[in-house]
C-alpha cells in the first residue's frame, strides 16, 4: 500500500512537472509567436513604372513604361516593359485646367518606349501632367513643374590642366524655382571612358595594387565603364555659391568630379521637386547615409498609382578638355 502510494505520488509529481513544463513551453511558444516576428513578411505587388525627363526648352521626351518585378525575379527589359499602354501628357494652365494634350504612341525603337505624336517644346515654369493606362494595372498620373531656364554665359577654360588651382568654372544666370532655392546636379560625361584615360586618383581606387603592378594593360570592365563614363553629383543647393554683384553665379568644378582626361561634357542641371526627391531618396536607398545598416527606405516618387520618375529640369552644357598635369595648357 505504501509502495503503491509512493508510486502514485511519483506519477502525480511527474505529471504535475510535465504539465508545468507543458505550460511553460506553451507560454514560451506564445511569447515566441507573439513577439518574435511582430512584423509581417513582404509581398510583391506589381506596379506600373514610368520614366520621363522633361527639359525646359527642349522637345517633349520619350516616356518609358515598365512594370515592377518580384525581388526574386530575373529582370529583363522584355519581361518588364509595357507595350500596350495609352499615354498622354497634358499642359496645365495656372488654374489647373488642361491647356494642351499631347498623346504618345509606342515607339518602334525600343520596348516600353512611347514617343509624342506631335512636336512640342517644353515650356519653363509650366506644369505638365502625365497620364497612362495599361491593361491589368492601376492607372498612373503625375505632375511636374518645369524649372526656369537659365543661361551659360561663360566658361573659364576650353582646355585645362588636371588639378590646376584655378579650376574649371561656369558663369551662369540664376534659375528661380517656385518658393525654394535652386537645386543643381552636375553631370560629367566622357565618351573615351577607358583605363588609359583615368586620372591618377581613380586608377588607384579602381585597380588594386597587384593589377597596377602586373605590367599588363589596365582594362575597365563594362560595369565600371558604365558607372564612370557619366558621373553625377548629389543634389547641391544654390546657397553654396556666391552670387556675383550682377546676379550671376560662378560655379567651379571640383577636381574630384573629373574621372577621365580628354574631352568631358559637363552639364549643369536645375531640378524640379520630383527629380530632387527621387535623387536624394534613391541615393540614401543605395548608400544608407544616417540610417542604420540594413534599413532601406523607399524612394519618394511623384507617381500616383505606380512608381518611377516623371520629372523636369533646365540645363546647360559645355565641353572642356582636361589634360594631364604638366601638359601644355591653353585657355
Amino acid at each position: 500500500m505504501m509502495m503503491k502510494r509512493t508510486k502514485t505520488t511519483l506519477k502525480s509529481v511527474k505529471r504535475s512537472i510535465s504539465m508545468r513544463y507543458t505550460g511553460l513551453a506553451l507560454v514560451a511558444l506564445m511569447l515566441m509567436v507573439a513577439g518574435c516576428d511582430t512584423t509581417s513578411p513582404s509581398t510583391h505587388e506589381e506596379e506600373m513604372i514610368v520614366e520621363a525627363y522633361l527639359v525646359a526648352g527642349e522637345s517633349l521626351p520619350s516616356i518609358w513604361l515598365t512594370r515592377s518585378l518580384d525581388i526574386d525575379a530575373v529582370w529583363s527589359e522584355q519581361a518588364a516593359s509595357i507595350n500596350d499602354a495609352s499615354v498622354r501628357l497634358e499642359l496645365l494652365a495656372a488654374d489647373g485646367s488642361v491647356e494642351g494634350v499631347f498623346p504618345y504612341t509606342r515607339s518602334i525603337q525600343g520596348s516600353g518606349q512611347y514617343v509624342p505624336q506631335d512636336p512640342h517644346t517644353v515650356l519653363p515654369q509650366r506644369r505638365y501632367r502625365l497620364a497612362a493606362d495599361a491593361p491589368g494595372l492601376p492607372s498612373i498620373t503625375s505632375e511636374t513643374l518645369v524649372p526656369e531656364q537659365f543661361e551659360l554665359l561663360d566658361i573659364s577654360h576650353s582646355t585645362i590642366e588636371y588639378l590646376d588651382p584655378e579650376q574649371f568654372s561656369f558663369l551662369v544666370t540664376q534659375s528661380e524655382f517656385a518658393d525654394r532655392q535652386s537645386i543643381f546636379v552636375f553631370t560629367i560625361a566622357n565618351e573615351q571612358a577607358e583605363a588609359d584615360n583615368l586620372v591618377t586618383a581613380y586608377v588607384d581606387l579602381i585597380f588594386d595594387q597587384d593589377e597596377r603592378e602586373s605590367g599588363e594593360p589596365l582594362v575597365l570592365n563594362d560595369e565600371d565603364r558604365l558607372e564612370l563614363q557619366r558621373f553625377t553629383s548629389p543634389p547641391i543647393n544654390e546657397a553654396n555659391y556666391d552670387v556675383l554683384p550682377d546676379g550671376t553665379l560662378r560655379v567651379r568644378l571640383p577636381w574630384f568630379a573629373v574621372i577621365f582626361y580628354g574631352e568631358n561634357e559637363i552639364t549643369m542641371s536645375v531640378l524640379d521637386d520630383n527629380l530632387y526627391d527621387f535623387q536624394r531618396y534613391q541615393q540614401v536607398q543605395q548608400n544608407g547615409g544616417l540610417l542604420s545598416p540594413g534599413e532601406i527606405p523607399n524612394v519618394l516618387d511623384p507617381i500616383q498609382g505606380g512608381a518611377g520618375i516623371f520629372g523636369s529640369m533646365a540645363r546647360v552644357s559645355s565641353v572642356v578638355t582636361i589634360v594631364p598635369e604638366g601638359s601644355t595648357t591653353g585657355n
Partner: protein
Amino acid sequence: MRFFTRIIRVPLLVLTLLIAGFAPSAMAQEASISGFVRDADTGETLLLANVRIKDTLIGAATNTSGYYALTGLEPGDYVVQFSYIGYQPLELSITLAPGESLRRDVDLLPQEFEVDEVVVTADADTEEEQRQLGVSRMPTATIRQLPTVLEPDVFRSLQLLPGVKSASDFSSGLYIRGGSPDQTLILLDRTTVYNPTHFFGLFSTFNPDAIKDVRLYKGAYGAEYGGRIGSVVDIYNKDGNRRENAGSVSVGLLASRALVEGPHKRGSWMLAVRRSTVEPLLAIARNQDVEGIPNTFYFYDANGKVNVDINQDNRLSLSFYSGQDVVDVPIADQVSARLRYGNRTLSTNWTHLFSDRLFSNFTVTGSHYFSKPEFEFATTDVFQTNDVWDYSVKGDFEYIPDSRNQFKAGFWMGNYRFDFRSVFDGLEGLNLKTRAIYTNLFGEYIFRPTASWTITSGLRGAYFSDGDYVRVEPRLAVERRVTDKLFAQVGMGRYHQFLTLVTNEAFSGLDTWLSAAENVSPAFGDQIVTGLKYTSDAGFRIEWEGYYRTMRDLFSLNPFLPDVAGLEYEELFHFGEGYATGSEVFIQGSIGPFSGFAGYTFGVTKRRFPTINENQYYAPKYDRTHDLNVTTNARLSSKWTFTSVFTYATGQAYTRPSSQYRLGNSPFEAQQTEVLVSPFNGARLPAYHRLDIGFTRKGSLFGAESEWQFQVINAYNRRNIWFYFYEFEGDGDVSREVVPQIPVPVPNISYTLRF
C-alpha cells in the same frame, strides 16, 4: 535675462530658508549619526552603501559622495549596521545622548573572495530603503573580468543588463528601453560627456581602472536628473588610494593601461592613462604593402583626480578626463581621409556639510567634444568641424530632518555652445553657431509615512534659452515593502530633451550634436515603470520591472537632405514620435563557487517619421523582442576563475525588399538606375546568439599581484548577421550579401600587474 533672474530667485530663496531655518538646531532633543563610509584598504568612499539601525527598519544609503545620515533618533543605545556588497559588514555600538549629533566615518574591509564574483547590484543590495526603481550598479571588478572584445568596457558590460541593448557587435552604444543613445545622459564626475566612444564606437571611453562606480538609471528616474528623455549613466572616477601609494599596469592586444594613486597630506590623488598599442602591427602591415593601412592610428585617454579634505565638513576635488582618437588613412594616390575626435572634461567639486542633517555638493564643470573629419580627393578638400562646449555650475542639497522625511533640491545651470561648420572645395556650405543658456531646478521630497511605504515626489523645471523654452517635469515614485524580502514599486515622470545626436550606428567618429531652437521644440516623453524586487533567504535576487514610455516631438537630422546649405534651421530636421514598452526579469545569485546573473527582456519599440515608411510606425533596427543574457562565474581554484557570457536575442528588424525596378534612360547616369521597393524594417534577421568565455589566472611577480586573462569571444563560431546588402546584378538578379557580426572566434589576452 530678467526671466532668467526670476526663474532662479525662488528656489534660491527656498534653499536659503532650508539652510538658515532647519539646519543646525532642529529637533533639539533628537539625536543623529552621520558620516562617510569608506573602503578600509584604499579610503575610497563607497556609494550607496547600506546603513541601518539593527533590528529596526530605520536605515539609509550613502549618497553619491559616500555620506550617510540617520537623523531623528531617540536618545539611547543602538547598534548600527554597515554593509556593502563585496565588503565585510560592520556593526557599530553607539550611545546617543539627547540632541547629540554623532559623527562616525566608517571603514569597511573588502571581502577578498567576493571580489572575483560577477555581481551587479540593483541599488542597495538587500534591504535598503534607498532602493530606487530601475537603478543598477555595475562594479568595476565585474567590468574588468567579463569577456569582451579587445578591452574591458563599461558600456558593453551595461549591455548585459535587462532593458539595455546593443546595436551590433561593433557598437558600444546604449539602447535603453527603446531609446537611442542620445536619450541617455552620460555623466562622468557630474560632467556631461558627449561622445563616450573610442575606435569609432567599438568600445566606450571609460577606463575601468579609473572608475569607482557606475550606476545606470534605466527609466522613471528622480527629479535630481534631467536633460534626457530616457536614461542616465552616472559614472564616478576613483578618488585615489588614501592609505598608500599603489598602481597597476595592464597590457592588452589593443591597448595598455596604467594606474597610479596614492595619498597626500590632506587627501588623495589618482591618475590613469590608456593608449592603443597597435602601431607596431600597423607598421608590419605597411611594410608588407597591405593597402589601406592608416599612416596614423591611435587613441588615448587619461583620467585624473585630486581630493583635498579641508576639514571634516569640507572636501574639494578636481577631476579631469581627456581622450582622443586620431586616424589618418591614405586611401589612394591623391585620396586621403583624416579624423580626430574626442572629449575633454574638467570638474571641481566641493562637498560641504552645513550640519549632520544638511548635506550639500557644488560642482563647476566644463566639457568639450570635438570631431574634425577631413577628406581630400584630388585637391578637393572636404572637412567639417563640430565642437560642443558646455560649462555649468550645479548644486545639490540634501536635508534629512528625521527618518521619515528627506528633502533634496538643486540647480544646474550652464552655457552650451555648438559650432558646426562644413566646407566643400573651399565653399562653406554650413556654419551653425548655437549659443544657449540652460537652467534646471529641482526639488524632491521623500516621505516614509510608515516603515513599509516610501513616497518620492519631485518636480524639475528646465529652461533653454534658444527658443525660450520653459518645461516642467513632475516625478513620482512609490515603494511598498510587502515583506522583509519583497518590495513593490511604481514610478512615473515626464522628461524633456533639448539636444539631438546626428550619428550613424556603424561609426561614431562623426557624431554631431544639434539643439532645440525656435521652431524646433524639445523632445519630451512620459514614463511609467513598475517593479517587484525579491531577495530569497539564500541571497538570490529576483527582480521584475515593466515599463511603458512615450517619445514625442523627436527631432533628428533629416537623413534625406543631401545638402543643407541655405536651409532654415528647422528645415534640417524631421520630426517624429515613438513609444516603447517591455518587461524585464533579472536574477542574481551564487551557489558555492558559482555566481552570476541573468537578465531577460521582452520589449517592443516603435517609431515613426513622416519621411520614412509613409509615417507609419516601424521597429527601429535595434528593437529586439526577446533578449536574454546569462553571465556566470566559477572559482575553479584559488588561482583560476572561469567567466562566461551567453546572449540570445530575437533577430533585429531589417528591410527585406519585395519588389524591384530599373530605369534605363536617366540623363544623369549611363548605367541603370536601380530601385528597391520594401516594407520598411518589415522583416527580422535570424536570432542572434553568442557565447564568450574567459579564464583568469592570478599569481604574483616580484611580490606584486599579477593576473593573466585569456578570453575567446564568439566561442562556438556563431555567424550572426549584422545586415544584408542587396546588389543589382548585370544578369537581372538581385543578390543578397550577408554582412556578418563578429564572424569568427576572437581571442583576447591581457596581463595585469598590481603593486
